[in-house]
Structure formats: C-alpha cells, structure tokens
C-alpha cells in the first residue's frame, strides 16, 4: 500500500505501576517502517526519556512485544502499513503484566510461572552417560519440536483472557513449554511435569478459545499443546486409579 500521508499520529502510553496516560506524537511516515522504528524515532527525536525494550530487531529475542492498537504484537516485525488505523497508532505496554515504566512491562510473573509450570531442564542422564539417540522422525520428538521455536515474547500471555481473569493461571507459553518437556525423552520425571500443570492455576483452566494461537507471532499453537496436557493428565490420573 503506498503511503499517502507524510505523518501519522502516535499515542504512546506513559506512566508506571501507579497509572498513566497516553501522550500524542506526530511521527513521519515511511514506506517500510516497523512499529519499533516508530517508537525508536520518538525516543531519539522527541523524548529521550521514553522507556521501551528491544534487542535483536529481527524477531529472535522476544523482548519488543507491546500492545499495538489493542493487539499484542512483536513490534520489530510488525509493519506500520499493516496495523495503522485511521492514520493512528496506539502503543501501550503488554496486557496482563504490571507496567514498570512507559512501554516496559514487568516480565517477572511471566517467567515465574514458566518455572512453576516445570519449565526447567531435569536431565534423565549425566554427562558420563551415552547420549540418547532420538530419531528426527520419532513421533514424540515431532510433538516436542512443534513448540521449541517459542521466543518467550509473552504475546500469547497478553492475549489470553483466562490470564486476565485468573491470577494463578500459568498461561499459554509456560504450559506449552511443559508440554514440550513432557514429550522430551531426555527429561527425567515427566510425572513431575504433569503434577506441576494440574494444580489450581494449571492447564485445566484453559477455555480453549485460542487467542494464544491466533496471536503468537511464530505461529505456534499453545492451545493444542494445552489440550495435549489435559489429555495426558487425565490418562495419568485414571492410571493411578483415583
């Protein structure tokens, strides 16, 4: 789409955990321009005090996610052309996380839940044991592989209404990671993974509406992973016979 306006209106959320408001900027339009470019332009040319987060600028690191016109997005890979609405961009920190300052959201709850859902490596062998041989076309490995491209951007976490309404809910990314570990032959105690996702904030709270899968910038499918966890936990529970 050719750019017909020279400038656009950009409303940027300014504030901290105590509250804030939108501040309006006028930013030059360019044909190829990402939302992160716009935020950087404001910080470099209008207000050096604007806080935001990014690192790789190529969709690898997962640090640049923000709400853009109400939708969670990786801003470094989001073209302004695609999301501009009435020549306006509204940029805010990620939903469902406490804001630290301006566009920087506190990721602690997201990563704490990642650990709570069993998201750490518990090896089944030591360095002195032989490496397990896992065929690339192994069916279980294929399931584990489906989710390994997660970049921890928390876009899915911001998109999830269950996270918004239930502070205990572990959220799509952490649960998807648990599903990957459950299917990884190199993980020692898969029962522990199932136990970690079966509690009060566990996978059974998911309403399967699929906002996570819709908005994940890497086109992963946390909803399907969570469905896998639900089935696995039930099978496990029935096997234990109580």
């Amino acid at each position, binding site marked *: 789409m050719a750019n017909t306006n020279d400038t656009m209106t950009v409303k940027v959320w300014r504030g901290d955990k105590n509250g804030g408001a939108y501040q309006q900027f006028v930013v030059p339009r360019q044909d190829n321009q990402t939302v992160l470019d716009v935020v950087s332009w404001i910080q470099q040319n209008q207000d050096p005090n604007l806080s935001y987060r990014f690192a790789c600028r190529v969709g690898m690191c997962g640090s640049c996610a923000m709400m853009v016109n109400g939708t969670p997005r990786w801003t470094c890979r989001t073209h302004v052309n695609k999301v501009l609405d009435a020549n306006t961009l509204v940029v805010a920190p990620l939903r469902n996380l406490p804001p630290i300052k301006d566009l920087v959201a506190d990721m602690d709850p997201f990563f704490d839940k990642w650990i709570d859902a069993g998201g750490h490596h518990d090896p089944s062998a030591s360095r002195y044991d032989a490496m397990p041989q896992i065929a690339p076309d192994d069916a279980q490995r294929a399931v584990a592989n489906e989710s390994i491209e997660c970049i921890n951007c928390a876009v899915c976490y911001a998109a999830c209404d*269950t996270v918004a*309404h*239930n*502070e205990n809910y572990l959220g799509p990314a952490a649960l998807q990671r648990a599903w990957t570990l459950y299917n990884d032959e190199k993980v020692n105690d898969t029962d522990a993974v199932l136990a970690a996702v*079966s*509690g*009060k904030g*566990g996978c*059974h*709270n998911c309403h399967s509406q699929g906002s996570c899968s819709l908005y994940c910038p890497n086109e992963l499918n946390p909803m399907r992973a969570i469905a896998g966890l*639900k089935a696995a*936990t*039930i099978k496990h*529970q029935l096997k234990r016979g109580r």
Partner: protein
Amino acid sequence: MNIRLYMAQRLSAIIMIPLVFGHLGVMIYAIQGGLSAGEILSRTQGSVFWFMFYGLFVIAVSVHGAIGLRTIMSELLRWNDIALDAIMWGFGLLSIFMGARAVSAVTWL
C-alpha cells in the same frame, strides 16, 4: 479449577449427552401423543427406569452446574477459594435436593 474438578466436569458432561437427547425425545413423544398429566404419571410412577434416568440426570446436572458456577464466580468476581467452594457445594446440594424432590414426585408410587 484443578484436575479433579475438571474431570468431574467432563464426566458429568459425558453422562448428560445421552440424557439430554432422551429427555428431548420424551418431551416430544409426550406432547405429540397428547398425553395428559395423569397418563404421564401412570407411566412414570413406580418405574425404576425413569427413577434411574432422571435421578442420574439430576446428579449430573448438579455436579456440572455447580463446578461451572464456581469457575464463573472465580473469573468474574475473583472470589477466594473458601467462598468458591461454599457456593459450589451450596448450589450443588440445593440442585440435588430440588431435583430429587421432583424425581421422587413423578416416579414414586
């Protein structure tokens, strides 16, 4: 919602599926055939089958509804666990009581 509540929720749903269709069928049959209240009661009273059918239905509905209500209250009003368990048990037992009265009224002699 934890795994036990989730399983009770799904199990009660599975039980309800055939019962809902059976109930719809019974209603259509009774209306189409133009059965009077007396004729219906003469078929249901003393029937072990209808007692079991609607008795099971009442239990499944009560379990399913109570857990569903607990989830709604949790997500909508963010009640604490004690309040959530109280409304779940209160609503569930009340439904069973009211349902049991209705079932016994139509199936007992």
